[in-house]
């Protein structure tokens, strides 16, 4: 996922004298053309994205074996009551999702911003440094999982080999991905490896879009480096800041692939429970419980929508005024 910012409509200004031709009658061909090319994606979006999102909410109030439509029974809030009170992996999953988000916001995001700030000052080899740090972003999150598996492998992995902790009978044998107290942090390091480069590139683009004369003006006014950064550059980059916040929140909520791979291709390892994995396991797992899965999905939907709506409001507010 990625986002871009700036729908501020300032570009619309460029087309200033807005003397549009009055709404004219579209020809039949025009209408047909528009109907097909807009109707198809709109239909796909509604049928395969928004309808299932709403259906998730609906199914979350039912009990269903997932086979025939006739076996659906309305159970009200029963599923929610169950997942909140007697579904052991639920609260750990919520906790891990929260840890994931907080960690991502506090470690790789500032690291990416810091690196971007260092790289922005036209230095030599900037391109080389950028490529090295950005490279993981190009890889699939699943492949990132496989690569880190080779690093974390308790017997053959790089980490244990270097630390000398790869002897199963030895005193210090560390099973990075098996130990429920360690594995989440191991996965978070792998995820940070990718996220840092992502944030770095977004921020770098933001920095480049800041009008250099702003900095000069700040310098003339006697602002020091930090003042310039906090008072001039950060506010000037508002669109990109919003984008980075949304990317950070959404990537944390939808984390799945890496954990699925790193927990041995079934996505259920103690210490690595995540909402996304619980939903999937209840959908296509060994004992599918669509009602449960949907209640979990609805929880995730509500949290996601809070972030999405914030983003939309930020982005489209000016547009509406224009």
């Amino acid at each position, binding site marked *: *996922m990625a986002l*871009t910012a*700036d*729908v501020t409509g300032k*570009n619309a200004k460029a*087309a200033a004298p*807005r003397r549009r031709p009055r709404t*004219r009658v*579209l020809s039949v061909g025009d209408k047909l*053309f528009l109907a097909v090319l*807009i109707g198809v*994606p*709109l239909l*796909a*979006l509604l*049928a*395969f*994205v928004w309808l*299932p*999102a709403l*259906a998730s909410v609906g199914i979350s109030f039912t009990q269903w074996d*997932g086979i025939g439509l006739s076996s659906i029974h309305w159970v009200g809030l029963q599923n929610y009551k169950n997942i909140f009170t007697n579904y052991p992996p639920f609260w750990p999953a919520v906790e891990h999702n929260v840890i994931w988000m907080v960690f991502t916001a506090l470690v790789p995001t500032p690291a990416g911003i810091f*690196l971007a700030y260092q790289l922005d000052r036209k230095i*030599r*080899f*900037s*391109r*080389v440094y950028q490529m*090295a740090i950005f*490279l*993981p972003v*190009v890889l*699939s999150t699943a*492949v990132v999982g*496989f690569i880190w598996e*080779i690093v974390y*492998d308790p017997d*053959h992995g*790089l980490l244990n*080999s270097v630390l000398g902790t790869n002897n199963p009978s030895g005193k210090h044998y560390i099973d990075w991905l098996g130990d429920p107290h360690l594995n989440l942090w191991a996965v978070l390091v792998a995820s940070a*490896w990718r996220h840092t480069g992502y944030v770095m*590139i977004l921020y770098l*683009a*933001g920095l480049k*879009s800041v*009008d250099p004369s702003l900095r000069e003006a700040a310098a003339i006014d006697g602002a020091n480096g930090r003042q310039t950064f906090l008072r001039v550059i950060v506010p000037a980059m508002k669109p*990109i800041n919003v984008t980075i916040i949304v990317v950070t929140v*959404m990537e944390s909520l939808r984390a*799945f*692939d890496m954990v*699925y791979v790193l927990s041995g291709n079934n996505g259920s390892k103690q210490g690595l429970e995540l*909402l996304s994995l619980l*939903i999937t396991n*209840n959908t296509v797992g060994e004992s599918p419980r669509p009602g449960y*899965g*949907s209640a979990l999905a609805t929880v995730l939907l509500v949290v996601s929508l809070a972030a999405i709506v914030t*983003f*939309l409001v930020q982005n*489209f507010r000016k547009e*509406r005024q224009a």
Partner: protein
Amino acid sequence: MTTTTATDLPKAAAPAGRPATRSRRPRGLGRHVFLALVSVGWLIPLAWALFTSLRSYSDTAEHGYLSWPHGLSFDNFSTAFDQSGMPHFFWNSLLITVPAVLLTLLFASAVAFFVSRFDFRFNIALLMLFTAGNLLPAQVIITPLYKLYLQLPLPSFLSGSGYFYDSAFGVITIHVAYQCGFCVFVLSNYMRTIPREISEAALVDGAPVWRQYFQIILPLCRPAFAALATLESIWIYNDFFWSLILMETGDKRPVTSALAGLSGEYFTNPNLIAAGALLTCIPTLLIYLVLQRHFVGGLTIGASKT
């Protein structure tokens, strides 16, 4: 946007009036050391995977993985490639990625064209619907989508299974539905920068809407298309979740999600897994290295525009 030019030259000729805030060597050197260390550190996991994949299993079994290699070879790559039938999975990836990217761009550009060129009441609502759809986590919709895919029939020439489920068509459909949101967002921003006068002139000349779209707007959007095509190709190729959940037959899966099955079935040692994982990266790495400007441009388009 990522140009790096030697900037030491103008420094010497810089106006003397400027206070010498940037002391030359020491600070710059410190930054270089820091950035070089970070860069090298960043490459370690990939380098380790490459190192592992280039060694034979017997060598690592005897001497351990952290040891001086006794001969490096590409044997693991050729074994992984042949033994597991990876060419077939690459072909699957191609069959999903190419149509999905083309359809996404076609449809998204039409929606963006409409939203940015016509004064329709619900333009912004439409734009928001697409954008928000792209932001929803896939897991939020998976339970009903999975059931829907099992029910929705498809003619046999589109799907061997007879349903959306377990067919490339189904996976392409969800990619298009999902990715349109992002592309509509980017393209509508882009199209807004094209002066309205251009299409108004065409209107006055009596050009129908489809001609305006194909002959005027689309060619002008070429840079945005290049960026989005690069970005979407990599994203869709990299997809793991949709094809894992919406496809049952391992043989139909694209290479990224097939890897999960391969690692249990064929890849019996870490050296082979490393080779297999790196093989799947090759297309995206190539696309990135060749079209780097477009890839980064796609991520930052709109944000970097002033």
